[in-house]
């Protein structure tokens, strides 16, 4: 089972002829992902890593039956790339691109909702179902198949946590990096619900960051709707107020969205919060969680 992607997922890559697109197409392919095609306007007929290139997403979908796309298109054009995929009927859109203007994302997320498209990101490392499918830029070698579902707003911090989980023998069902932008596709709550309904997932790790109130909402949702054990970790306890810490979303302002408030929200919902990444596996194994 797993969520969102599995060994049957047919993936296309938008921006496949670019440097990052080509590089990660090779990585995804060697991980075992079915890369059915790529999109690059005006370059139909070409092949990248043995994958056929199409001019439009619609052409790629009609010719390959793709159900998932991974976007590496530069920021000024990425919003449009998401819309193109949505109107071509692609069910799952994963946008890796960093630096998309917020107004573009507001427009795009509202439109694709009407089409029933699911979006992961932007500004994210994508997602992986270990041993089955990698749709993104995560380093496949650190993952191990298992029962822990993981949702994170971060990139390398996610890898850090996954590596520690794998080292302590805890494999993963699906790991998703939802991205650090202020407005993006799926948030914690939607993904928590999918993990709750996935028979292969037996526990959930949630990695949050300062800024916004997605973690507070997730805590509220876990209290009422999630029966599986959840462990949380929040980065940014030492971050100063009003400063942008690399991720556009990780800004503390208006006295809300601080690490302390998020940690309190989880504790009130009965979710243990690890003091450091190395503590997560221990809490999961002790069974001392919600």
């Amino acid at each position, binding site marked *: 089972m797993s969520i969102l992607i599995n060994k049957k997922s047919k993936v296309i890559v938008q921006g496949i002829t670019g440097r990052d697109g080509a590089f990660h197409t090779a990585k995804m392919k060697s991980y075992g992902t079915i890369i059915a095609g790529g999109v690059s306007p005006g370059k139909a007929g070409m092949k990248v890593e043995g994958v056929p290139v199409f001019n439009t997403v619609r052409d790629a979908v009609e010719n390959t039956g793709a159900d998932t796309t991974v976007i590496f298109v530069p920021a000024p054009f990425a919003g449009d790339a998401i819309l193109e995929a949505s109107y071509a009927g692609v069910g799952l859109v994963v946008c890796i691109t960093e630096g998309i203007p917020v107004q573009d994302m507001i427009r795009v997320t509202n439109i694709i909702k009407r089409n029933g498209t699911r979006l992961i990101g932007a500004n994210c490392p994508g997602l992986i179902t270990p041993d089955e499918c990698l749709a993104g830029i995560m380093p496949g070698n650190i993952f191990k198949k298992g029962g822990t579902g993981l949702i994170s707003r971060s990139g390398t911090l996610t890898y*850090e946590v996954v590596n520690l989980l794998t080292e302590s023998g805890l494999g993963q069902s699906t790991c998703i990096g939802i991205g650090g932008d202020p407005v993006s596709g799926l948030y914690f709550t939607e993904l928590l619900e999918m993990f709750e309904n996935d028979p292969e997932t037996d526990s959930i790790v949630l990695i949050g960051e300062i800024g916004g109130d997605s973690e507070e909402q997730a805590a509220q949702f876990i209290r009422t709707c999630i029966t599986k054990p959840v462990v949380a970790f929040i980065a940014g306890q*030492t971050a100063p107020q009003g*400063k942008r810490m690399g*991720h556009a979303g990780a800004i503390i302002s208006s006295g809300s969205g601080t690490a302390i408030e998020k940690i309190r929200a989880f504790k009130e919902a009965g979710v243990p919060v690890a003091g450091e990444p190395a503590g997560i596996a221990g809490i999961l194994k002790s069974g001392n969680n919600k």
Partner: protein
Amino acid sequence: MKIYEYQATELFKKYGIPVTEGILCRSVEEVEEKIPDDSKPRVIKAQVHAGGRGKAGGIKIVSGKAAAVEAAGQILGMNIKGFVVNKILITEAVEIEKEYYAGMINDRNTRSVILMVSIEGGVDIEEVAAATPAKIFKTVIDPAVGLMDWQARSAALKLVSDPKLLRQATGIFLALYRLFMETDSTLAEINPMVLTSGKKIVAVDGKMNFDDNALYRQPGILAMRETMEDEAVEIAAEEKGLSYIKLSGTIGCMVNGAGLAMATMDMIKLYGGEPANFLDIGGSSNPQKVVDAMDILISDKNVKAVLINIFGGITRCDDVAAGLVTALKKIQSGIPVVIRLSGTNAEEGLQIIRDHGLEPVTSMSEAAKMAIELSKKS
């Protein structure tokens, strides 16, 4: 990106939002030169990117030229929350009957722009929001149609009922929305939005922030950027592809990835140390980036030890290690450096560091503890 009040006021004016007319001055001489010799009441306002400037003495109401010159002398050069005042805005003083609040922001949860208005303006709006949330009226704007007239009117009705004032307030909200959208703003605030004794609604203070990711298509906004002294290092870092924020601790941090960088800072604190900075070198293993990052770290005289924390994902640890060695050879600072490498090709990376005569560590907790220990000795 942030702009000053006087710049926000200029944008308001351009979009037809009534403002109090003002004159910007950078010195007392300029005030002497530009202010007419009369007895009119005026407001002298420090131009700084810090809230609560009124309480800090950065706003003075005076009558006549001589008093304006004197007040300008007091405010210019003043330090408000770490910001030195080198510009003041001198505006006409209006007779205030009532103060309101109007603001616009991008909202993550509704994935839309939100208009917020309140009959409690002029004060700290965050306190109003926390103590009496019912006094803040929110309008969620559908991105497909934008702010509709009836929505702007409904918001205006929360503040005024007189038909003439209702039209004025509605017009201001519609104009503010147009300004917000056309400039890729992330925050636009009129606080206070004032009802004068002459029955006019005027923006007396304005604040605007803009989306850094959209500056490529906002040349007019980008031209308004004024680099502040305290941000000079941060902007220089940005130009080199590094994300740096200075803090006040003693342990310099160099990390790949923003989330991991924050977690590293937290861990230093957890084990009893204080991070000197946030520094994200991104995904590249380019040695020049590591050299640049080291230069920035050791330019901070508070730094007593450096902690380099790299998790190799797509970036391989051996590439990063080679970059680190090149960088470290160039830098003879005498400041102890702790290197932690983990992830893809970690073994090869660790060997490269060892060959350079340094003893790397593999766990993040261990690295943090070691850096704290070394910072106390040096």
